[in-house]
Structures are given as structure tokens and as C-alpha cells.
């Protein structure tokens, strides 16, 4: 299965680094090249509504004014925004399927990895989930390889690819 098999590429919507985007079918939310970043997806099956955040950094540690579309940048602002979306749409949190993808350690033994961002991103998100009592449905985390993902809003399925377009997993 290649990256865009059975997919109409005109329906793809990119969720760039730090962004948060929601949509409905027939659209597909896409992230190309998740390294140490983590994607959080919320999906409401009954209404086929989905939202995806492209988290770059752990919790915000100083004031940094974020425009609404950049609320995905930090773990805490992203989760807060995902909760807001759930409330605004009057979805019951127990009906939301939550998935996490990403957080790869890209540079082995590098001084550029002293901050260990990938693991801290994952931990930070899990702490936020604990605060709001959010249960995780499925994950595809860690490892040393980057991932590109397609979040299908028809069924909430996420296709995960490695660089070059090889299918790694569907969750």
C-alpha cells in the first residue's frame, strides 16, 4: 500500500507544525514528517467529526502569544483546545476516540538531543490527559523513525507511513 493509494489528494488538508485543525468527511487531515513532534487526534464517530493537533513542544514554559490556529504548538495548549472543541460541539468525552502518534527519537547520541523532546512531548500530553481524565484509545509512539500520517475523517482511522511512503501501521 503506497502513501496515497485509494486517496483523492485534493481532499487532503495539511496540519502544519504547531497547528490544530478540525474537519469532516470527505476531508483527510495530513501531517508530513512527524519526528519528535506528536499528533493528537480526537474523533467523534456519530457525527464523523475529527480534530488533529501537531504538537511540537511540551508544556508552554513562558508567555508566548498564540493565534488560535497555533494552539497545537504546546502539549497543554493543544489539549485545552481539543477539550474546547469537544465542549463547543457538545460531544460527550466518553464518545471521543483519542489517538497519539509520533514522538520518535531522531538523533541517536547527539548533543542536539539533550532536551529529549520526543519523550517529554509524550509525557506532557499524558499528564494533560490525566488532568482532564481523557482515556487514550490507540497509540503509535516512539522508535527512531519519522512518520507521515493520514487521518481519515470517514472512520477515524489513521494510516502511518515511514519516509518514502511505506505503510507502517493503521490504527
Amino acid at each position, binding site marked *: 500500500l503506497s502513501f496515497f493509494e485509494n486517496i483523492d489528494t485534493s481532499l487532503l488538508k495539511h496540519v502544519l507544525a504547531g497547528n490544530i485543525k478540525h474537519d469532516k468527511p470527505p476531508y483527510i487531515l495530513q501531517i508530513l514528517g512527524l519526528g*519528535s513532534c506528536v499528533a493528537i487526534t480526537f474523533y467523534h464517530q456519530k457525527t464523523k467529526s475529527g480534530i488533529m493537533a501537531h504538537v511540537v513542544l511540551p508544556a508552554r514554559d513562558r508567555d508566548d502569544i498564540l493565534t488560535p490556529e497555533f494552539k497545537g504548538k504546546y502539549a497543554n495548549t493543544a489539549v485545552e483546545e481539543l477539550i474546547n472543541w469537544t465542549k463547543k460541539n457538545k460531544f460527550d468525552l466518553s464518545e471521543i476516540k483519542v489517538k497519539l502518534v509520533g514522538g520518535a527519537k*531522531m538523533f541517536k547520541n547527539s548533543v542536539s538531543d539533550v532536551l529529549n523532546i520526543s519523550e517529554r512531548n509524550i509525557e506532557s500530553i499524558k499528564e494533560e490527559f490525566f488532568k482532564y481524565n481523557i482515556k487514550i484509545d490507540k497509540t503509535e509512539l516512539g522508535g527512531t523513525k*519519522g512518520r507521515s500520517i493520514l487521518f481519515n475523517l470517514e472512520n477515524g482511522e489513521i494510516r502511518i507511513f515511514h519516509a518514502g511512503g511505506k505503510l507502517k501501521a493503521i490504527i
Partner: protein
Amino acid sequence: VVLNLSEKNDLPSELIDALQEVGNIGAGHAANALADILNRRIDLSLPKFNILSLEDLSTVSWGNKNEWDPYAFIMVETKGFFKFVVLVIFNKETLGSILKLVSGENIDPTNLDFDELSKFDQSAITEIGNILALHYLTAIGDFLEIKFKDEELPTQPSLVIETSEAVLLSLAANSSADFMHLISIECDIFASDMILKPVVALIPDNNTIIRARERLFS
């Protein structure tokens, strides 16, 4: 860590000029070294410069046709007073040409499977990237009139084969800088009937930008 994703913080223009000079010198050195290794006459195009900040990372393209196609990144980094990450980036086509040059085999880059590269291929790519990177570092040293001490120089180059966004964003997120500036130098190398299109990216950390500026202009 506050990565700025939505606005551009410009580098001082005199520093950009200086880095361009570094690029010119580095490209020349690197080409000579490559000519020696590959035992071929090497010609160079004029280097092209670009300053990229984080917002540009998701749209940057260095010659791959598909945005999900990987690049080979060879990374070295210096420690100490002046901190630079130097990335040498090969697109698919260039990677194929390099493997062809070192192995003598006819390799079609369109059929190149990045997951199936042999240990030999990987070390050849890493070595050639490393040579390019080290020559650029020497050029930086010459220009700043510093000599990197042994313990400040990179030890093991790392090879990462990934999409550009995954690598560059991870690098930015892992640096403690507010802004990440990436100075890319594109310089085509003509070797026999082949054109290699490596990209060399210099990434100074924030303190290094300040220190280099002081060193050069005060």
C-alpha cells in the same frame, strides 16, 4: 523553549554576508577534497544562499519530486564557544549518483530503496557527507579566525534518512533556541557526466550568532 513558528526573526545582514563568504570558501575546499576521493575532475556552480526560519521548513524542497520522499541528512555538530550544527543533505537523485560513483554500479535513483541501503552504502554516504561538512566547518573557523579544539570538533557523524520536516523540526525542538536559523548553501557539483546537488545547511545557535557578530564586527 519558545520556537517561533509564525514570525521571522532576521539575522543581521552583515552576518549573512559573512556566512556567504564562508559558503564560498567551504564549497571550494569541499570540491577539492571530493575530486581527490573520487579521482575525478570536479566543477562547481556558483553557490546559492537561503536563510530559512522555522515557518519555511514545511515548504522547503531540495530537489525531491514527492514531499514524502526522504533525504539523506548527515549531521555533525561542534561543541564549545561557537556551536554549529552542519547538515549535509542529499536528495534522492544525488544519493543515487553518489552510490553510482563509489560503487561503479548503475543505480537508478527512482528505484532506490532507502530502507534497504547496505552498510557499505550507508558508510559511503556518511563519509562523503562528513567530508563536505568538515570542510565547511574549516571555512567557518578560518573566517572567524578560530581554531576548533579537538574536543570541540564533531566525533561521529550521524546519518538520518527522513523527510525534511521530520528532521528539521526535531532539530529545532531539541535546540534551546528561541529561533532557529538555517543557512542553506546549494552548490551543484559536476563530476564526469553527473551532477550532484548537495545542500549544506549551517545552523548556528543563538549565542553563536551573537558571538560571531562580536568577533567579526567589533
